[in-house]
């Protein structure tokens, strides 16, 4: 099977260190799929992100994205992290335009198409409920709004792959659930492939088509669990026993992985 994001038998360690962060890691995410990766802390979830976006290259094994072996940063990917990492000297709108100032072909067309790009950024802001917030500076926004902006920044160059590294980890429970729905709708509307790294099992089960459970360091995939809950999913689904059972089952795997 050849998926959209494929890691096959990947070993990786940072720098000259001999301690492997991941070992024999194989994962296969199909185009348009929403995949969630969970595991005990320090299991190499973030390493998976770096490998799949071409920020790190494996010691052994292969990484392919969109049918091509990854040998350079993957420009069809957008990324968002736990910290929104917005630039405080730029307005929200200007922050969104940052990727377009860097990634080709937008970079060379920025001058000519500026109005179009600004319209695109405004649309994106509207779609995450930040209409008319474009002229504010990041520090004038709440944590949840900053994280929405960060998501928009990851999507502005219309990537085919969205990589999320615990993007809701620093938010309060209500804001987090709100953003689950934002991400759910973005995925449904844009049909992009999403890889979400998280330690929140409810989040993983609510959002994902498949959940991968990783082992303790050096990380590899222990369990792959398909989530059959039909879409579109409402937040109410998280209170059904079917949902709870899956979360409970995954929790069992994690507890085992930590031992």
């Amino acid at each position, binding site marked *: 099977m050849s998926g959209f994001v494929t890691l096959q038998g990947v070993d990786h360690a940072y720098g000259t260190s001999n301690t492997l962060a991941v070992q024999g890691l194989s994962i296969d995410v199909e185009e348009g799929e929403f995949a969630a990766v969970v595991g005990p802390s320090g299991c190499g979830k973030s390493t998976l992100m770096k490998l799949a976006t071409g920020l790190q290259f494996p010691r052994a094994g292969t990484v392919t994205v969109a049918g091509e072996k990854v040998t350079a940063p993957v420009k069809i990917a957008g990324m968002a992290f736990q*910290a929104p990492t917005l630039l405080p000297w730029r307005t929200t709108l200007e922050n969104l335009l*940052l990727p377009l100032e*860097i990634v080709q072909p937008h970079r060379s067309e920025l001058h000519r198409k500026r109005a179009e790009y600004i319209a695109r950024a405004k649309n994106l802001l509207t779609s995450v409920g930040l209409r008319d917030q474009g002229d504010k500076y990041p520090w004038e926004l709440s944590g949840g709004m900053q994280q929405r902006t960060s998501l928009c920044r990851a999507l502005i160059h219309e990537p085919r792959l969205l990589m999320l590294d615990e993007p809701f980890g620093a938010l309060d429970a209500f804001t987090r659930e709100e953003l689950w729905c934002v991400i759910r709708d973005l995925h449904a509307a844009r049909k992009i492939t999403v890889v979400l790294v998280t330690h929140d099992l409810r989040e993983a089960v609510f959002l994902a088509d498949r959940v991968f459970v990783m082992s303790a360091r050096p990380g590899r995939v222990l369990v792959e669990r398909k989530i059959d809950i039909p879409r579109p999913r409402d937040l109410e689904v998280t209170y059904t026993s079917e949902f709870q059972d899956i979360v409970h089952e995954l929790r069992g795997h994690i507890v085992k992985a930590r031992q």
Partner: protein
Amino acid sequence: MKQSTLIRLSPWLFTIGLLVIWEVVVRAFNIPTFFLPPPTAIAQAFVDYSGPIARNSWITLETTMIGFGLAVGFGMLLGLLVGWSRAIYAGLYPLMIGFNAIPKVAVVPILVLWFGIGFVPAVLTAFLISFFPIVVNVATGLATIEPELEDVLKALGASKLDIMRKVGIPRSLPYFFGSLKVAITLAFVGSVISESVASNYGIGNLMLQAQAQFQVPLIFAGLVALAIEGIAMYAAMAFLESRMTGWAQRSGFAQN
């Protein structure tokens, strides 16, 4: 009185209070003027010698600003270089610390040997003493870019130069402007040191001559002139800082 008016007036109240205490102490203990002149005597000297003080203050200001200007240009370049590469950072840092540890007054004789006494060694001393904080601050701004943000940009295919231009340089500006406030006061120290050791002009030289003639109030008047210049230039830098990097100063912490 309202709290805000009090805060606005308090610099003046404290300054006037200090001068009053000074005057009273000098008179009460009958301290001779050649030992510690009272503020009134210093003010008198300021009036009597206003011509020479103004002329020499101007020279000192000019010297300082040229040295400071060199320090800004050179310090910024070196800071960018040091922040650019870990290898350059590792190589230059011990050298810079060692250099910064040298008392600059000890360098003046060498400068005199090379350039003769007067203007040039004073400019260079001002430059040498003030570039270090600028380098360190610019380099710190560059070194503290969030790694996640770097990842976001690198994944988009950003070159190191892109990251520097879009993130590094704007990010280090508050550090840079902050360092200017330190650097400008140090630059005054540098130029006055050199003027008092090896020059025929400037406030440093004026004070040295006043000392030789035992005109103690004039020495103090020279100090006051320097303090005024220092405060004025510091205020100019602080103004520049708040104009250029207002986004970095949104916290009310310093205002309370």
